[in-house]
């Protein structure tokens, strides 16, 4: 029968595949028939894979929690400052355009009129240095300012330039001011002097820590400040409360919306939301997880190598016999590597299961929601096989170098 080069090649390829299958089956049989030896061989890699899996799953889960915490701490306020606006303040129509944005829940003015006003209850009292803040209802709502006592904050825009103010709770405590309930300027309010100008205290407010300075401030409407408080205002700011994470985008848009012509000299003062820090923490966590996996993987690899070397020593006669019968060095080495790879695969499967189970129990105890990357089992499994294969290299070389005479002389 004549054969073409192509059919000859195909036949050789079939023979090669047959050889690989036979060697793999031989290796599998060696592992199955010697369970204790197999267990000793896979223990190291299995523990390494389990530790790496559990470590990465717990790190990923912890990462999700860190993400959540960062989200909670991300800036949810936009602050726009105008350097060149007229004393009338921001045009109401443009403010409405800002409020209409989807991520914005409230927006309005919250400017510093005077950062060092001298405030007291009466002339002989020692004055307290305080901020005088110009605000409207939207600005106070955006800053999360709440009325603690006295007239509702919503009335600040209705004061129409009357000498009425709201003061922060810390300032109220220092001055000993307790406003009466009722309409602002109704004649029953406590009085304070701001740089010598008397103002009625309509209410006491509290502010969240992000706007803590308002607790020690005197808050008035722009019309009141213009009419009754000395000075011309130190800055003019709009504050908007936005959905966490949207501050940067809204800040960029707001400068355009509030000042399309670019006449007001607007600046976006929105504080950064810690993305870089978050990214650094995330990369540090992964680096720690990877280093841990590499160290444990190395230990597993050495354990597998040690067990295989002992196995090669124990099987010297058998391997020598195979060599005497005509097995090539490559085939004997391949037999050992196939055993290594199969042991690594077995160790990987058991290790991944063990690792997931461990991580799941840990997360259950900690009441964390388990996060599993879909590719993780594949990557860790491949890592286990690779570690086992690398660990099997030296034993395979040793096995391949066993002389066929060993069988005759033992």
């Amino acid at each position, binding site marked *: 029968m004549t054969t073409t080069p192509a059919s000859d090649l195909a036949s050789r390829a079939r023979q090669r595949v047959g050889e690989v299958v036979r060697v793999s089956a031989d290796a599998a049989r060696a592992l199955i028939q*010697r369970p204790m030896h197999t267990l000793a061989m896979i223990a190291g890699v299995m523990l390494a894979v389990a530790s790496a899996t559990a470590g990465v799953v717990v790190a990923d889960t912890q990462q999700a929690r860190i993400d959540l915490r960062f989200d909670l701490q991300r800036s949810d306020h936009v602050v726009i400052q105008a350097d060149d606006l007229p004393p009338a303040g921001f045009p109401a129509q443009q403010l409405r355009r800002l409020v209409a944005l989807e991520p914005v829940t409230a927006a309005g003015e919250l400017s510093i009129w005077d950062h060092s006003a001298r405030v007291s209850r009466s002339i002989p009292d020692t004055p307290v240095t305080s901020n005088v803040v110009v605000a409207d209802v939207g600005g106070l709502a955006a800053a999360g300012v709440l009325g603690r006592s006295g007239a509702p904050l919503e009335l600040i825009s209705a004061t129409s330039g009357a000498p009425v103010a709201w003061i922060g709770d810390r300032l109220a405590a220092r001055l000993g001011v307790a406003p009466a309930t009722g309409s602002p300027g109704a004649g029953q309010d406590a009085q304070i002097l701001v740089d010598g100008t008397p103002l009625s205290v309509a209410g006491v407010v509290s502010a969240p820590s992000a706007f803590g300075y308002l607790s020690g401030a005197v808050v008035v409407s722009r019309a009141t400040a213009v009419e009754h408080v000395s000075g011309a205002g130190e800055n003019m700011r709009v504050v908007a409360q936005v959905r966490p994470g949207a501050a940067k985008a809204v800040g960029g848009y707001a400068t355009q919306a509030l000042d399309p012509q670019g006449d007001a000299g607007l600046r976006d003062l929105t504080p950064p939301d810690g993305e870089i820090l978050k990214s650094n923490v995330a990369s540090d966590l992964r680096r720690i997880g990877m280093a841990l996996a590499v160290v444990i993987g190395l230990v597993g690899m050495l354990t597998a190598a040690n067990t295989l070397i002992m196995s090669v020593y124990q099987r010297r006669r058998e391997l020598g016999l195979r060599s005497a*019968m005509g097995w090539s060095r490559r085939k004997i080495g391949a037999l050992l590597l196939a055993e290594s790879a199969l042991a690594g695969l077995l160790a990987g499967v058991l290790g991944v299961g063990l690792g997931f189970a461990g991580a799941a129990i840990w997360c259950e105890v900690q009441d964390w929601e388990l996060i599993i990357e879909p590719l993780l089992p594949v990557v860790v499994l491949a890592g286990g096989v690779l570690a086992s294969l690398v660990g099997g290299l030296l034993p395979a070389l040793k096995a391949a170098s066993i002389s066929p005479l060993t069988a*005759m002389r033992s």
Partner: protein
Amino acid sequence: MTGSTPGSGALVELSGVGLEIAHPVRTRILQPTDLEIVAGESVAIVGPSGAGKTTLASIIGTLQSPSEGSYRFAGQEMVGKTRKELARFRAGQLGFVFQQAHLVEYRTARANVELGLTDPSLNRAGRRELSMEALRRVGLHRLGERLAAHLSGGEQQRVAIARALVKAPSLVIADEPTSALDQRTGQAILELLAGVGTLGATLVLVTHDERAMGTAGRVVTIVDGGIRP
């Protein structure tokens, strides 16, 4: 039968083949030796312990190379071949039976015999058939699926013979195959080996066993590393 076995003439030709090792001390293991073994012949190599019998057999089996001389197998020079070429030669032409059966304990008798089949073109069914045939020849076909660990010493040695014969080698080298067996079992093994010639193979039998000398066609005595004339 596989391999290029000549129908007549010398299968094994040793000419001035000797072995001297340099480490750990320079030692002469085998004096320069001339020996011819004709195809189909049955040769017993005998001599006292340490005389060099196993060394001579291992050189004939290409398990080690001589330090001098020429070794031709079926007219082909063996000295100077690479390790890979020698492995391929052994795979095609030689069968070995050692003092110990060296079976893989966790494999069945049949699977152990299959280890002797190194022809990659054989498929699974072909391997199984040849292995069972070899086991039938040594009278163990009923124990083909029994684990090697569960066979007696004599049965294990029979499996080893089947493993050596399964590829129908040109030359079978048996090194002290009966020394680990009782007298009766040893006799049965010798009878089996005596039948190697009927399969067309040549037999080189290294032994102390006087009965073996009776079954061999020719006896070569080796003393102090040299063949006694």
